[in-house]
């Protein structure tokens, strides 16, 4: 069930020559300035651990958990060492060895993937927040994680929508002449930002494509995969595969989603996770070949001749774009979202400084290293503020949550939305 084979991991570990090039780009290292933070350090420890020279101490686990999986190191590495996969495999081993945090396993492996439990918990949390926040002792880890950061500031979480997107009745005007597109909402689209899904649907309708929103889809599983819970991730992979490409039914030509991290999970990790299931492996490859992140789909379908930035008049809101790691490095896609934003008649566009730098969310990283996560986000916030933009657009739910939380602490009136929502609003 491991996503990447043991021999591949060993090969990647041997490829690291410890030159140190990752030190120049690793967001965690640049914040911590300790060898623990950086890719070559993590690889060195994992290699020691694999050779059983090092125990799974709490220090080891902290180090392995303190990786954003952003892939910046691989990009600057002369040997292109795939640190992300090695770290994920090391986390999976911790889960198998029952070393990882039980709370984390429960939250990311069970709670988050569940379409029944997670919404209940979220609702409960929001309702009980005021009461509970007073009752739960302030030193409780749960309290600290969910409500406050180290300096006592509140964590900003977007409101939940009722009913959730996938629980609503949807009637689409379905065109049979064009390509058929299945929409994967992702947790953000389902629970918090249905506008993102509506943006995609509006785009598809306008261009007369066939639309499917399979109701049986669930969480993409990246959160579970990220903490090393490959079993939970695999269950979700099976569920999503059966929902999106049901055996014996007509398959969509494309699968798109407002979140590039979901897209990356479906395209890359899903087939890896079920490669050992003979009944599904082929279908998983079919699915992977159909996954296209929203902005890329927009570009492919619209084939904009050449997007010229619209004249910026003072009345229009100004957008800026943050590159999610999974889109810019994962899919190698930086142009499509920018072309999309610059094509919007209702908004202006401005680049921020270092748009490709990781926002510091990193899924579970944000939970286990909240202060560090915010410290990394601060650089991003500085860039956003000096860009003068009114709205930050991105294409990843993790980035969106992170930027929203980080901005809420300094300039809460700056909005954070997805590319799909920007299409809905400003096209």
């Amino acid at each position: 069930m491991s996503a990447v084979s043991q021999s591949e991991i060993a090969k990647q570990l041997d490829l690291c020559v410890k030159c140190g090039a990752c030190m120049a780009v690793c967001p965690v290292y640049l914040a911590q300035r300790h060898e623990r933070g950086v890719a070559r350090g993590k690889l060195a420890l994992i290699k020691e651990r694999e050779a059983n020279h090092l125990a799974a101490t709490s220090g080891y686990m902290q180090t392995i958990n303190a990786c954003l999986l952003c892939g910046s190191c691989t990009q600057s590495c002369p040997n292109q060492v795939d640190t992300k996969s090695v770290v994920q495999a090391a986390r999976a081993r911790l889960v198998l060895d029952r070393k990882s945090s039980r709370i984390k396993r429960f939250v990311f492996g069970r709670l988050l993937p569940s379409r029944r439990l997670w919404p209940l918990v979220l609702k409960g949390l929001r309702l009980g927040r005021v009461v509970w926040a007073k009752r739960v002792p302030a030193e409780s880890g749960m309290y600290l994680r969910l409500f406050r950061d180290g300096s006592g500031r509140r964590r900003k979480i977007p409101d939940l929508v009722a009913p959730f997107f996938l629980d609503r009745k949807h009637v689409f005007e379905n065109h049979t002449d064009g390509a058929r597109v299945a929409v994967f909402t992702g947790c953000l689209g389902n629970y918090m930002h249905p506008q993102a899904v509506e943006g995609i649907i509006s785009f598809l309708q306008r261009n007369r494509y066939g639309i499917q929103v399979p109701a049986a889809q669930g969480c993409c599983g990246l959160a579970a995969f990220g903490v090393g819970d490959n079993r939970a991730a695999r269950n979700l992979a099976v569920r999503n595969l059966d929902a999106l490409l049901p055996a014996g039914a007509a398959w969509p030509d494309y699968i798109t989603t407002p979140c590039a991290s979901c897209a990356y999970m479906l395209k890359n990790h899903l087939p890896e996770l079920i490669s050992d299931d003979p009944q599904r492996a082929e279908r998983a490859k079919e699915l992977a070949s159909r996954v296209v992140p929203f902005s890329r789909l927009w570009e492919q379908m619209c084939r904009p001749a050449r997007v010229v930035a619209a004249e910026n008049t003072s009345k229009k809101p100004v957008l800026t774009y943050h590159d999610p790691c999974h889109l810019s490095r994962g899919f190698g896609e930086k142009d499509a979202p920018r072309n999309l934003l610059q094509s919007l008649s209702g908004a202006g566009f401005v680049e921020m400084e270092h748009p490709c730098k990781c926002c510091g969310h990193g899924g579970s990283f944000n939970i286990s290293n909240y202060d560090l996560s915010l410290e990394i986000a601060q650089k991003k916030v500085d860039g956003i503020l000096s860009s003068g933009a009114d709205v930050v657009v991105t294409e990843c739910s993790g980035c969106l949550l992170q930027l929203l939380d980080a901005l809420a602490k300094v300039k809460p009136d700056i909005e954070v939305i997805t590319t799909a929502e920007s299409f809905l609003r400003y096209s």
Partner: protein
Amino acid sequence: MLERKIIGCLEDIVGSEYVKTSEEDRVLYGYDATPFAPKTLADAVVFPSTADEVAEVVLLANQYRFPVVPRGAGSNLSGGARPIRGGVVLSTQRMAEIIEIDTDNLQARVQPGVVNRDLQLRAQQHGLFFAPDPQSLEFCTIGGNLAENAGGPRAVKYGVTRQHVLAIQAVLPTGGLARFGARTIKSVAGYDMVSLLVGSEGTLGVITEATLRLLPLPQTRSTLLVVFDKVEACARAVSKTLQAKVIPSALEFMDQNAIRCVEAYQPSGLPTGAEAILLVEVDGSNADVDESSKRVEKIMRSSQAAAVTRSTSPEHAQALWKARQAVGPSLARIGPIKVNEDVVVPLSRLAEAVSGIDAISKKYRLACACFGHVGDGNLHVNFLLNDNHPDLMERVEQAVGELFALVVSLQGSITGEHGVGTSKQPYLSLELGDVQMDAMLRVKQALDPLGVLNPGKIFPIDKPFDQGTVG
């Protein structure tokens, strides 16, 4: 392992949170970028924040006799930052402040942990730059640059690190805090201790502050890409360029194997039939650059260059440099294990060196690619391996031995940039005779009688560390 008592003393000096002894920290600060180095572990890692703390740590080391290994970014390629005798690794990561950029005197005063790139960026804001530009400048530290006397492509015009250090503050091996040099271009008061400590690989002092020369950023630069069918013609062209009183700001060389590697991995439009290419960069005022580029072009054409391309814009120049930047990653694709030697020869012997290296790689049946800062005679000879099979490694070892003998016979040096550390120790006597070795050893013994600072580097020193270390 260090006794608990000593760890306690270290904690008193730098604060308990800045003394690390966990298994992970000992692994993490036990390596540097040296290939094929055996695993080494620190007993403890300390992160001092001031020169006084560094001095106290070194004093303690003298008292209890344990090794102190100074470490910057740990990007060293010859084992300099490895705690081969255990003891304390002293990291400069917390001493990373650019104290001042003195635009009146064109100087910078920095702490040792400052990353070279960060200094470059700060200097640029004032229209200045720091000349040393090792390939690792994005992450290596100034302290490491000084300790290793680092050089880079710009050395052909601007020299190596030593030429850009005016003064240093350093903790000497017996714990004294000394200031050497002056904040002036000239100073002949006593021995030139700055030059002695720069390049001493952490064996004669821990540099805690440096006053560096900055230079005005040139107005403009221009790049020429020159292709040669014959490598001998290329070597002659290099000499002719310098004889013609044109000093390029970079003069980089790639041999046929390097070219083919690049084309296989990241096609850059280089002719794979060519035996060598040169990348020549000239900098200066607009008029100077125009004049020198024309002269270089003329020299190249008269030296049987097959093709000369002159950059028409900064972007075009960048595109021309792409091929050179792709060499490292490309070689990794061909043979992920790379034995990289940084030999250097006088310019007049370049052609002999190149053909000699070719003969050696053929003799030992090794894939070999050469590239480097040929303007200063520095050649990076890379033997590329797919695995580290013992037979193969033995062939490499013999080839390396012959390579060093070759460069010494050509009046060159076995290491231009990377330092001796541990990896070049076996070959040092090829270049240095008994008298020279003895003089150097006596300097080391005079300054570091107990041998606490980076023991076992440059020269094999066997002094027991009976009190501080066990086993």
